[in-house]
């Protein structure tokens, strides 16, 4: 079943065309990656789906409903959640407050407490720093916090925008382990990455974005062995 369907999506920054009508879909239970170089339009795609950037043309459908005109904040209670590029945790708020904000759409206080405890047992470093402002955390800890925060709303579709950015190889592995873990819990994942090799290794399918249009698509396994992908994105 198609969970997210993007058809002919066009986005402009002023007169500059950032997305020239791209189409892709994510089926329920999949991990799908969008890979591509800087400026290809990956983040633009992610942000326009969540209503952070206005859409000029095309349609975005989520679980059979067109969501182009739905205000972004309403998408969260429908089960969409995004870990934005650069993590964007609330620097002046504590780790705990960040997590509580992640549960902004949740009403069940006991469940929220349970979810936070679960995140703390998964990421003990966050538990230790519960009352510390998030701005004092390291990059890796902030990424864990951003991912935990995004899970607080119990999403069905989790979108991650460059979760490995600026992290050491060990932490990158950890981030991808967590994504796989969330996926195993039944969350559908749309992943945007520059680290194509890593992204392809955990994905079912992938799309290669090049200056605002989709250049290639296919099973992740095939793309991993595709010669042009290897040359351009895998550095082999």
């Amino acid at each position, binding site marked *: 079943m198609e969970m997210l369907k993007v058809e002919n999506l066009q986005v402009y920054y002023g007169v500059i065309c950032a997305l020239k009508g791209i189409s892709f879909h994510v089926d329920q239970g999949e991990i799908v990656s969008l890979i591509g170089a800087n400026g290809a339009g990956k983040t633009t795609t992610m942000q326009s789906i*969540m209503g952070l950037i206005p859409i000029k043309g095309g349609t975005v459908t989520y679980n059979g409903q067109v969501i182009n005109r739905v205000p*972004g904040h309403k998408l969260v209670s429908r089960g969409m959640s995004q870990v934005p590029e650069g993590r964007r945790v609330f620097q002046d708020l504590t780790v705990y407050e960040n997590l509580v904000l992640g549960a902004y759409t949740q009403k069940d206080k006991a469940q929220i407490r349970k979810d936070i405890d679960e995140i703390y047992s998964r990421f003990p470093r966050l538990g230790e720093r519960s009352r510390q402002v998030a701005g004092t955390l390291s990059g890796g800890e902030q990424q864990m916090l951003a991912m935990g925060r*995004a899970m607080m709303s119990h999403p069905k579709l989790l979108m991650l925008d460059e979760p490995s950015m600026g992290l050491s190889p060990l932490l990158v592995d950890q981030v991808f382990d967590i994504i796989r873990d969330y996926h195993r819990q039944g969350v559908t994942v749309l992943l945007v990455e520059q680290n194509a090799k890593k992204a392809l290794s955990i994905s079912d399918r992938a799309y290669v974005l090049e200056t605002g249009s989709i250049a290639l698509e296919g099973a992740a396994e095939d793309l991993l062995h595709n010669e042009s992908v290897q040359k351009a994105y895998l550095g082999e």
Partner: protein
Amino acid sequence: MSVLFDGLSLGAIYAMIALGYTMVYGIAKMLNFAHGDIIMVGAYAIYTTMVFWGKGLWVAVIGAAVLCTLMGILMEKLAYKPLRGASPLAVLITAIGVSYLLQSLAQLIFGVTPRPVNLGSFGSVEILGASIPVSTVLTLVIGAVLMAGLTLFVNKTNTGRAMQAVSEDRGAAQLMGVNVNFIIMITFAIGSALAAAASVFYLMQIPLVEPLLGSMPGIKAFTAAVIGGIGSIPGAMIGGVMLGVIEKICLSIDAIKDYTTAIEFGLLILILLVRPIGLLGKKRREKV
């Protein structure tokens, strides 16, 4: 002693107004120069209910609070919301326009002559050997209660936390499911309600209403907000109280009393020279 009490109570008034400036700046990222005129609206609301309709003080206070809150929401909806995403200069000029609009409306409706409004006399009490008017004590106590309440609201409730989130990163707040427009509306409502409270205490000190009544306290409170670090809630409180105390001290010394306003704004310049972000302002690197 009485100078200190006068200063603290004037400071509480400034702080209440400054909170409106600082919250709106922090959350909507704009300077609402019409905020001072909300005090004037509140003052005329009190004048109308008490002098025209002959109602009591409490009715007048509640009426002013309701009217100011609605005015704040209306102002945001009609004038500022359509400009979301527009250049800051356009928003700033609109705010100045709204300010003139409110002042001119008041002139049309009530005329330009200042009118007296008597909130009643409250007598005075003896505190540490000094005779302090009850109105001063009321201003201080209620001001402190309102500010404590606001601090609790911002730090302990979901809506308050959402306000902090929007203030820091509007996009990320939206990704949490926060309705940013609603939070901005709430901010204007709270700021305007505080301005209504300020108008009551202002009239206790100077029982005259006129169309330009809001501009001077508005500018002073804005100064206080900048001194405290605009965007910072405790900063606005500290800046307001500081400015109020300094103003009353200057006014009590004959030699410098004529220079009071100059001294206050001079202080602003001095503080900005030493600490451009204000006393409690936060310095943040702009991310590219």
